[in-house]
């Protein structure tokens, strides 16, 4: 998809038939869905619902990436985040059999305090950044989001972090395995071994006794 889409869009803009271009409509639609689903993530009682709504949020964010022509990232977001990580979450939730009834509820005042704190943070940040100077991002255009260009930069300038990232993955894997190992099984095995050894000694002793 090397062909830029500019002429088409500019033509559209020149016409001024619509108040907003298609990209803008898409932007606002995706924004609305993202916010809505994020709110639902944090307010759902059933943890499985929370996971599902988070997946929807990820899809919308990928949509935003596409709008910004970051195609590689959009696909990777869906594959890795929504596809792998969220599935992992679902596995864990299923493992623990969590459902709406077993969900612990936080103290009402603390919930209110949390909401207020978050709300004030929102207000502060928005108020602070309200007066930033206008810079434009064009939607649907740009070469850098394309996987070719991105890969080129990654493997020339940022190859060292790339290799280190692989080592990071290795350590994470080992860590997860080590943590998740069933230690009870190890202990039980040791206890079993000890019993066997004891019985063996006992046999030997009695045998020896009889010998002498």
């Amino acid at each position, binding site marked *: 998809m090397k062909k830029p889409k500019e002429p088409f869009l500019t033509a559209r803009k020149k016409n001024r038939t619509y108040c907003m271009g298609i990209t803008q409509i898409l932007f606002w639609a995706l924004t609305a869905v993202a916010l809505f689903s994020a709110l639902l993530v944090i307010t759902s009682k059933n943890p499985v619902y929370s996971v599902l709504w988070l997946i929807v949020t990820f899809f919308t964010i990928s949509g935003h990436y596409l709008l910004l022509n970051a195609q590689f990232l959009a696909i990777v977001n869906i594959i890795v985040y929504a596809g792998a990580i969220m599935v992992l979450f679902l596995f864990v939730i299923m493992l623990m059999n969590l459902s709406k009834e077993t969900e612990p509820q*936080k103290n009402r005042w*603390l919930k209110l*305090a*949390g909401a207020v704190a978050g709300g*004030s*943070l929102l207000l*502060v940040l928005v*108020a*602070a950044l309200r007066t930033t100077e206008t810079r434009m991002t064009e939607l649907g255009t740009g070469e850098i989001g394309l996987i070719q260009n991105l890969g080129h930069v990654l493997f020339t300038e940022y190859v060292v972090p790339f290799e280190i990232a692989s080592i990071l993955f290795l350590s994470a894997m080992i860590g997860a395995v080590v943590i998740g190992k069933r230690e009870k099984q190890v202990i039980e095995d040791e206890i079993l071994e000890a019993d066997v050894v004891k019985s063996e000694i006992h046999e030997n002793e009695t045998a020896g006794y009889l010998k002498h």
Partner: protein
Amino acid sequence: MKNLILLIPLLPFLGFLINGLGRKHLSKGLIGTIGSGVILGSFAISLYVFLNLDAFTGERAISSSARILGNPVIRYFDFIRVGSFRIPFAFQIDQLSTLFLLIITGVGFLIHVYSTAYMHEEKREHFGRYFAYLNLFVFSMLLLVMGANFVIMFIGWEGVGLCSYLLIGYWFKNIDYTKAAKKAFVMNRIGDLGFLLAVFWLIAKLGTVNYTDVFTTAALDRLNTTDLVGITLLLFLGATGKSAQIPLYTWLPDAMAGPTPVSALIHAATMVTAGIYMIARSNMLFTAAPVTLTVIAIIGAATAFLAATIALRQNDIKKVLAYSTVSQLGYMFLALGTGAYVAAVFHVMTHAFFKALLFLGSGSVIHAVSGNQDIRTMGGLRKKLPVTYATFLVGCLAIAGIAPLSGFFSKDAILLSAFDTNKILYAVGLLTAAMTAFYMFRLLFITFGGSFRGTDEQRHHIHESPAAMTIPLIILAVLSIVGGWIGIPELFMQGGDRLSEYLGPVVRSKQIHVDHATEWILVALTTVIALVAIIIAYMRYRNFREEKETGLSRALENKWYVDEIYDAAIVRPLNRFGGFVHSFIEKGTIDAMVNGVGRMVNYGGRQLRWLQSGQVGNYVLLMVISMVLLFVLQFFLRK
């Protein structure tokens, strides 16, 4: 020359250090020798200075009546130096200070020797302590009289007050004695406040406290009447504290709690005369403030009279002598108040001789009757203690003012000056002289006459005192007889008043406007009245059994209840005020505040503990809140 003068106070100070630090290691004989020896050394040097005073001060005699005063001040170093204000550590060696030097070291030496025998029963380290304090006292007194400005005098002033406290409370295990010592010190302090205020006033007005700068007409011109009256009254207040005048005299009788030699030295011969010395030294200031002089005269006369009345009915040997001292000091202040400075100094000298003699004699008596001090259980000691009796008799004659003993000349000079100023003062003085003769001879007859009224055990132990005690008595008796002959008035001998001549440059003597005939009559009157009083006393107390008690005699015996009045009017309200301040301000406010701070910290800590709840959620909440705050600070409040 400088160093020689410095040795005079330095030797006793060395004695203090050696005896004080080595009191546990040196033998009693050595302690006594060092203690007395250093005073003897100071006396020798003082004698040398006295005989060669002209050489020391550079004084020259122009003619037989006029002399130019040289420079008597010897500076050593600057004691206080603040900006351009200087107070030098300097000694002023002129006639007045030399005279006092001789008295202090001479009588002091005799008393030191006496003490070696009197205190020989004390344990070694207490013996050493005693002599150390005594030497320290002499050192302070020497500083007092040798100082060339009011500040050095004040150092000695405070020092003698301190040593008085230490020595009165010498037997510190007895609570009554320590209370007496405390009383003496506190009353001294009240007077010292007056002294200090006067010094500050002088500094404020004149910028200097050196005698050579203050006692000049130029300096006096700079002070207006209020200054003069104020300064002199405050100085006199200091003198009342130190020299036991009304209203600060009640400590002196209680100070008899100390050992008898201490009473002799401090409360008869030297410390109590510091007030007189100070006023005599500042005679120029006082002459310029007649109001103060009147006050001094009245208080002096009143004190003399009051103390004499109380002494009439006291039954403790030392208390009689104590009130006698207060009375005689009153006489000296009467003399100062009427402008007869030389007469006052004269009486200081003679009083030192006969009062020390009387005290040491009483010490000998107490020693003989195994520590008893009540004269009602004494008597008949004349045969058993001949030397003591003889010297005591000499002392009584001297104090009664019988010619030709020393007391006659000095007392007559005072009464003459009083007569010249105010007839009422003279009458009071005359009456007091009669009472003096009466109560002293009452004491003599009750103690030495009649038959012994004490216990058998005491009777067996009566013995004359050892030589170390009797020899000083004899020497002092001789001095009491001849000591007055340096001040023989013109009445008897032309040019006989060597003392006035000697002190002339420093202390101006008073011009008496009384003709010879009147003077003869006055002299005769005093002598007759004294003799009559003695005879009456002899008749009454010759064979003493016991005395009748009347309402008046009870009041006299209880010192006119002055102590009780002081206690109720001053001491107890002050105590209550102190208690109030303690409970309300100290405990209620300050303590509460300090404790409150502690409690607040505790409370705050307990509240802060809730932050560390261990709940992750709380931590995150706090993080968010602090983030909000940081952002607000960063974006909105940073101007």
